[in-house]
């Protein structure tokens, strides 16, 4: 393979097909309510991209992506809530000008960490940076001490639990179990109308494709190869003179920032943020979305997220009892039988067919080293 371009033609076509699907086909085919749902699923796609980099490539399974999704979402929600709580709109409160749940909890002044969120610029910066900062602290503490694998998974899970308990416990500062609700406008622009939701859907889809391309860049660079090498044989990478911990911290921070962006877009489209998107259960679900689509394929993770969520909505509307059975069986089947998810399935069944259709290009086709089933070789730890 002597491809010198950043994106080889095959990948470019795949990205274009995906872009056409979410930016053209779905908006034309679906009614506004359904499209808004798809927009919600797309925000989980951001987390999926991060998980492919972090888990699929580098082999770090984080069960705390909900933390970062939630932090990004809360940053955006705090800004919107402050905008909705003008002194005029809240003049019936005993302290006008602060969010309603603070007033209910006898707070008389805005807490210090809410103040910067009056500014949209600060909020937009905080959405990826706050999650990345927390990921940096966690990563620094864990990876420098060579904590990895199952221990890392359990500790991220514990942190997700801590954050949820904290948010629910500190009602006055966070809105408690209901979360931050009743969000209305973004710089005076009403986000609750159908038109606004359509615009937000396109913003979300466009951002997702930009993030997809960025993640693709990371994967195709030398850095991406080091990540895969770390997954396969961490000690050999270390012996070659690379500081493994720094690469792990970097990719964990990138995954966190992506999740944060997803959370912010989620808040904008759904109109509220609550601790039920932060805890252990949503965090594991996010991992499952990526696993079903294929942990080593960016587009696979996105399709997987869309499909699982679509199935979840359809099933739980019609057959709520069956949904948990189906979901559980799906997890088990994917993990046991298809560790590479849908992407692996497509790769195995479609690639030979395509190769036969275009025999003159068959010898140019790379063997796709990243899709090799590392798990079968006992590589994923």
């Amino acid at each position, binding site marked *: 393979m002597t491809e010198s371009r950043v994106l080889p033609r095959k990948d470019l076509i795949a990205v274009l097909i995906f872009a056409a699907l979410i930016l053209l086909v779905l908006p034309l085919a679906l009614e506004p309510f359904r499209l808004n749902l798809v927009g919600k699923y797309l925000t989980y796609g951001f987390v999926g991209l991060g998980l492919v980099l972090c888990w699929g490539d580098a082999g770090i*399974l984080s*069960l705390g992506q909900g933390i970062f999704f939630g932090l990004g979402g809360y940053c955006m929600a705090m800004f919107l809530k402050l905008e909705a709580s003008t002194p005029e709109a809240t003049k019936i409160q005993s302290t006008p000008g602060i969010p309603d749940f603070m007033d209910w909890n006898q707070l008389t002044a805005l807490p210090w960490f809410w103040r910067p969120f009056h500014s949209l610029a600060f909020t937009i910066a905080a959405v990826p940076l706050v999650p990345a900062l927390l990921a940096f602290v966690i990563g620094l*503490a*864990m990876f420098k*001490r*060579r*904590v990895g*694998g*199952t*221990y890392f*998974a*359990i*500790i991220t*899970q*514990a*942190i997700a*639990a*801590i954050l949820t*308990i*904290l948010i*629910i*416990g500190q009602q006055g500062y966070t809105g408690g179990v209901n979360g931050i609700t009743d969000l209305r406008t973004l710089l005076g622009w009403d986000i609750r109308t159908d038109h606004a939701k359509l615009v937000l859907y396109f913003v979300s889809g466009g951002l997702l494709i930009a993030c997809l391309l960025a993640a693709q860049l990371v994967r195709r660079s030398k850095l991406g190869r080091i990540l895969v090498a770390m997954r396969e044989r961490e000690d050999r990478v270390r012996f070659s003179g690379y500081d493994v911990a720094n690469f792990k911290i970097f990719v964990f921070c990138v995954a966190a920032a992506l999740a944060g962006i997803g959370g912010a877009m989620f808040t904008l489209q759904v109109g509220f943020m609550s601790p039920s998107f932060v805890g*252990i*259960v949503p965090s*594991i679900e996010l*991992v*499952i979305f990526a*696993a079903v689509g294929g942990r080593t394929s960016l587009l696979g993770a996105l399709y997987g997220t869309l499909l699982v969520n679509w199935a979840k909505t359809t099933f739980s509307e019609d057959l709520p*009892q069956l949904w*948990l*059975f189906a*979901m*559980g*069986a*799906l*997890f*088990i089947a*994917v*993990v*046991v039988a298809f*560790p590479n998810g849908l992407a692996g399935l497509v790769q195995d069944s479609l690639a030979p067919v395509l190769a036969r259709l275009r025999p003159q290009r068959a010898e140019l086709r790379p063997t796709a080293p990243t899709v090799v089933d590392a*798990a079968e070789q*006992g590589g*994923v*730890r």
Partner: protein
Amino acid sequence: MFMGYSFGDLGSILAMQGFAGLVLFSVFVLMALGLAIIFGQMGVINMAHGEFMILGAYVTYLCSRLFAAYLPGAFAFYFFLAIILAFCASGLLGMAVEWALIRHLYKRPLDTLLATWGLSLILQQVYRSVFGAREVGVELPGWMMGSTHLSEQIEIPINGLIVMALTTLITLAVYLLIFRAGWGRQVRAVTQNRAMASAVGIDTERVDRLTYGLGCGIAGIAGSAFTMIGSTSPTAGQLYIVDTFLVVVFGGAQSLIGTIASAFTISQARSTMEFFLSGSMAQVLVLLSVVGILMLRPQGLFVLKVRR
């Protein structure tokens, strides 16, 4: 936060909260013992452990209903049968799960986590379909209720005492099984060096299956004990799973003594703080300090040398 309490009051508060902590400790130990055996020996993360516990709780509930309906004369003693049945039910289910699911995933420990999570979803829905979504409580026989007075201010509930006695008994039995019996020697051999154990003729697959069954069975007993201090709902197991994992990791994954010590530390710290702070803040503080200590000492409190 100590304002307004006299010295004697503080003493009895500490004693009573300490006792509440001991009961919590007992349930933790029963949960964590099974988890530690499974995690320590096989490296498998069993996310469905809470659901195995709840299975034990539901078996106990069924037992109490059956005794109340058909054998009211023997109702006082149904609990002993319930414990045995809970152990068998959870243990057998565990062995079946190991055979059908876990043994295919030994080389991929992170994937066992996802697969057992799927299993836990299925089990939760099974419980919900069979027993309903509402919490069920077990009626305790008369001799298990009430409390004894140690002094005027210190009250000790009897069901707590029974839970503690049960825990001591099970822990002793596990200790004897693992450290004194021939089968335990095989388990320890597999834990320390799987390849060599297999080379000297130990049937590692059989040991794995029985160990997984034993771990799940102990979870069933934990569920049985759990019915005495709380009510059972399909999702109750999930509330305990993270705490239990932290107990196991904090104690050092391969060390049973470490597991007991860390269960003691965590439960005592939590219940003592719970009296002075709100429950959620106590939990946050304890979890935070455990995570902090684990970052400084990732291998846990007690370490057993293991060849991987």
